[in-house]
């Protein structure tokens, strides 16, 4: 039976994570993500899980990676400055292939910035924040209910692909309270922790990729005596200085995600049937954009909207197809312009891509986006 509640985005995110099997949270207090830690502190021990407040942001991710290696599904939550500090171990999780979810409830930066006003300015940091080549999955909810769903998906993807997954919320969604109708436990699909497919006697190798290119390193304490390192390693898990092993490893890390790129690209289309202009938006901004597009439609504009849930890997095909269909693409985002350049790349000149940045610590008003749509529409008529 489903359950109707008034919930905050941060709480729904935490609840979704628990529903997906998260039993370990480590973190450090930071606005506007702290409610996730607080929710976990209350609710994890009720289900036999563990909450720990760590001494700093780096420890907050380190502790969940340790817990994940010991067999627990694990999550940490932070915001801008803390997200910067966590980058080091996001890279560790990527190369050592440790399932972990990192929630970043974005706030305005750089540095302490304009605390704790909303922003969507960590789009590129989510993709490239840690050093070195690595793939990334980042999901961004636009409603409180979807914060729950995104958390479930993020935990499942982290486990299935053994990779760090980022939930890229913004303050607007994190602190929003909405009526939510949460699914019952049996309605939620949960991806279980991967386990070794062979015994040691059968030649088990901790980092040997399966058909889906993902390896099955055993949980610590289960008798496999694996070695886990942030050094480039071969299929045994032990370090290798070999150029061919290095190339193979880095390539596989990318390919295990890119081969499912379309499957994990989640988005919504609104009013797109005869649209000549499309608004592409995500997170809190998509809520405003929806209102603006709806109003513009009523006034006769042929405008539609794509709402992205999957931020990374980038929705190449969605935007490529969109650019063939519409003449102009408007990208409102609460930053100086980040996501728009990816849209421009994927559109490849097939449609004109127009940036609508906002970086004054305030959210968009529907008017601002609607006026931008009207300006673009007026150009069409020229």
């Amino acid at each position, binding site marked *: 039976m489903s359950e109707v509640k008034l919930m905050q985005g941060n709480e729904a995110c935490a609840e979704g994570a628990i529903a997906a099997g998260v039993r370990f949270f480590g973190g450090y207090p930071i606005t506007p993500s702290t409610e996730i830690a607080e929710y976990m502190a209350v609710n994890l021990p009720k289900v036999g899980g563990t909450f720990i407040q760590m001494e700093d942001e780096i420890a907050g991710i380190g502790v969940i990676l340790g817990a994940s290696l010991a067999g627990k599904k694990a999550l940490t939550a932070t915001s801008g400055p803390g997200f910067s500090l966590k980058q080091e171990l996001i890279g560790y999780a990527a190369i050592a292939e440790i399932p972990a979810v990192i929630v970043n409830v974005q706030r305005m930066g750089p540095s302490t910035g304009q605390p704790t006003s909303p922003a969507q300015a960590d789009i590129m940091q989510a993709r490239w924040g840690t050093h070195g080549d690595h793939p990334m999955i980042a999901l961004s909810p636009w409603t409180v209910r979807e914060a729950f769903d995104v958390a479930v998906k993020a935990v499942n993807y982290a486990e299935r692909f053994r990779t760090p997954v980022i939930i890229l919320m913004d303050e607007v969604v994190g602190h929003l309270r909405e009526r939510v109708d949460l699914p019952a436990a049996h309605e939620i699909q949960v991806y279980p922790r991967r386990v070794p497919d062979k015994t040691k006697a059968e030649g088990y190798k901790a980092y040997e990729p399966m058909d889906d290119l993902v390896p099955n390193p055993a949980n610590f304490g289960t008798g496999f005596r694996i070695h886990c390192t942030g050094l480039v390693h071969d299929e045994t898990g032990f*370090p290798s200085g070999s150029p061919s092993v290095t190339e193979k490893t880095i390539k596989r890390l990318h390919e295990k995600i890119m081969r499912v790129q379309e499957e994990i690209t989640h988005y919504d289309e609104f009013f797109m049937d005869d649209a000549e202009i499309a608004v592409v938006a995500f997170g809190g901004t998509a809520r405003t954009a929806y209102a603006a597009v709806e109003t513009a439609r009523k006034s006769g504009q042929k405008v539609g909207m794509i709402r992205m849930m999957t931020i990374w890997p980038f929705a190449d095909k969605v935007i490529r197809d969109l650019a063939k269909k519409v003449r102009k693409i408007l990208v409102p985002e609460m930053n100086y312009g980040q996501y728009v350049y990816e849209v421009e790349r994927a559109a490849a000149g097939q449609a004109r891509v127009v940036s609508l940045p906002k970086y004054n610590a305030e959210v968009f008003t529907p008017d601002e986006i609607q006026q931008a749509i009207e300006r673009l529409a007026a150009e069409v008529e020229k």
Partner: protein
Amino acid sequence: MKDYESLFRTNRLPHIWCPGCGNGIAMKAIAKAIAKLDLDQDKTVIVSGIGCSSRASGYMDFDTLHTAHGRALPFATGIKLANPDLNVIVITGDGDCMAIGGNHFIHACRRNIDLTVVLFNNNIYGMTGGQASPLTPVDKKATTAPYGTFDRPFNPCDVAKTAGATYIARGTAYHAAPLVDLIAQGIQNKGFSFIETLVQCPTSYGRRNKMGNATAMMKHMSETVIPLTAYNRLSAEEQKTKQPSGVLHTDVFPEYAAEYAKIIKQAGGDK
């Protein structure tokens, strides 16, 4: 007593350490302590950071985790809390534990979580070629202290005591046999245990400071590191040139993972 050699991944040897390095002696002492206590090899995890010392994890036949620089303790904390049945032993170095990992160290001590930390103290950043560490004594030369160090080093055992560790000991590579017992006692302590182990680094530290070869450096250890009881009999002036060894401090305080189990019970999550 179990054969300690069976606790090594012999196919990963020889190790990467320089001739004369003391790390191998310290690593062997850990293996011997584990053998002595007959710990379940499948329920024991070795966690390390980054640096010369931290390569030890790869040679030991357990579940082993070679983390990022300074971060061994947060990972180890996660492992212990996620599965309190595991014995978790941390191998770290003076830079790893007392510089970049210093904040993690004091807080792990404070929590009194049941980890056993063996700090291989070679007084230098060895892997990067001999830079001064927070445990390099005053007036020593390092590549980043070409005119000699002048900043005070930590006494890591004092730091651990102030921060709340419940078992603190100091041993050396020279005193290899008693080191085994010091580590074994640390593993047996249900709480945060810290064993500072002095190891010689003839390549990046001794050579630059004209301390002679490994033998000479170990001889120096034998002369300057003395049992706590003998140390306590010295005058304050005499103590300046010596370091006490053995069990330096013990305390009794609730262990973190056990305390958290009570929280789970209180919240009803144990059912």
